């Protein structure tokens, strides 16, 4: 039984969707961001970096979203090319690209104050970040258009769930830029988003975290029936 330390509509959502899609037993433990529980001694004992998510297994407590994705897919032999598969190398490069480039740049949009101090700086900062994010998504869209086994609309993968969640948040945060990203400019990724959001696993998670029926293509803010931390 896994324990997922989560906050509604936080990066933990990526892991939760994958756990549901793989059909693995897990329970959730809320990290209450209203009282900054991510900085509490209890949570720092689980994850010394204080970041959400963390995933406890019987062997180890994992953190780093992409590390959890890779570990789960290798352990359970699902949703990514296995070691020795001819697509493994390509899968890894796009997984790392998503983690250290797309996700890293998305964090600049969500938390500009952590990167450039003065609010006066944030406008230029945001503009440059939005340009970079658009380029990253064009690149990923080109890959998705060739429908490799790790990024296509037929079968969910850890990478497609990761990218679609990032697109969701890029369109929701910061709130004064809601919906800035024209999804139709990325048709292959848009098709993948539509397919994923209609899956039963996605519906179960969306219901639990109050995300509504179109969590990727027409996202709105979470209104969770359980464990609200917003």
């Amino acid at each position, binding site marked *: 039984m896994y324990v997922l330390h989560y906050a509604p509509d936080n990066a933990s959502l990526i892991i939760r969707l994958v756990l549901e899609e793989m059909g693995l037993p897990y329970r959730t433990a809320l990290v209450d961001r209203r009282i900054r529980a991510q900085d509490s001694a209890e949570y720092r004992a689980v994850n010394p*970096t204080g970041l959400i998510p963390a995933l406890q297994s019987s062997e180890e407590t994992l953190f*780093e979203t992409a590390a959890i994705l890779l*570990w789960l897919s290798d352990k359970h032999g699902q949703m990514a090319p296995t070691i020795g598969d001819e697509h493994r190398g390509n899968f890894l*490069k796009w997984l790392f690209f998503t983690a*250290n480039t797309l996700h890293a740049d998305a964090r*600049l949009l969500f938390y500009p104050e952590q990167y*450039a101090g003065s609010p006066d700086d944030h406008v230029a900062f945001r503009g440059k970040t939005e340009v970079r994010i658009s380029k990253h998504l064009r690149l990923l869209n080109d890959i998705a258009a060739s429908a490799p086994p790790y990024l296509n609309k037929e079968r969910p993968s850890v990478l497609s769930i990761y990218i679609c969640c990032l697109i969701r948040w890029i369109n929701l945060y910061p709130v004064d830029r809601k919906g800035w990203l024209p999804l139709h400019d990325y048709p292959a990724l848009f098709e993948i988003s539509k397919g994923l959001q209609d899956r039963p696993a996605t519906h179960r998670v969306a219901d639990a975290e109050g995300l509504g029926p179109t969590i990727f293509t027409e996202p709105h803010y979470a209104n969770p029936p359980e464990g609200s931390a917003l």
Partner: protein
Amino acid sequence: MYTLRFSPDSASLIVRLILEELALPYEARQIDRAAGELSSPEYRALHPLGKIPAMETPNGPMFESAAILLYLSDRHPGLAPAPDAQDRAAFLKWFFFTSTNIHTTLMDIYYPERVAGDAAAGSVVTHASAKMKTLLAAINQAAEDNPNWLSFEQPSLLGYYIAVLMRWLGQNDPEATGYIKASDYPALHKVLAMLEMRPASLAVAAAEGLGKTIFTMPS
């Protein structure tokens, strides 16, 4: 056979050290940056963003330093826990932590204008430098138990990755906010001191003209 496209003392260094340490046959082909090779159609076919490194493999072109490292170590075991090993999870979380946090923050310190434009560059460096110290303290603590994936007794994928990043931080002007002194992180410093004496490090240092003590006292 692998062909690594490299430029001295750039991110290709991490991959080259691992190729040497694993004693794999490879060709190192220097990129002619002055001639604009990174923008050439031939290089863009290997790496659509025109960044360093790229590596040709039997499975096609690879890029992203950390992805190349993991790809190599899973094909040629010895420098990281195998996928079914008990400590694979611990290794993976710190490996991704290094790629997504330490490496990206280092880029913010060295290329702040890419993040925020010239106006906010100073502010970006200040924030990134403070964050770097927190990140290094966290991984230094993980190294204190001397896990075999970040040990001072045996070479490791993660050890080399951290060592190269600390090399670059140590190359900063000691007066600069982004300067990092390796000896401030004792557990990591022991790993660096061991790694820089490895035949693999000495061979790569000689090939790229990096001097001795490439990690603890970089020039």
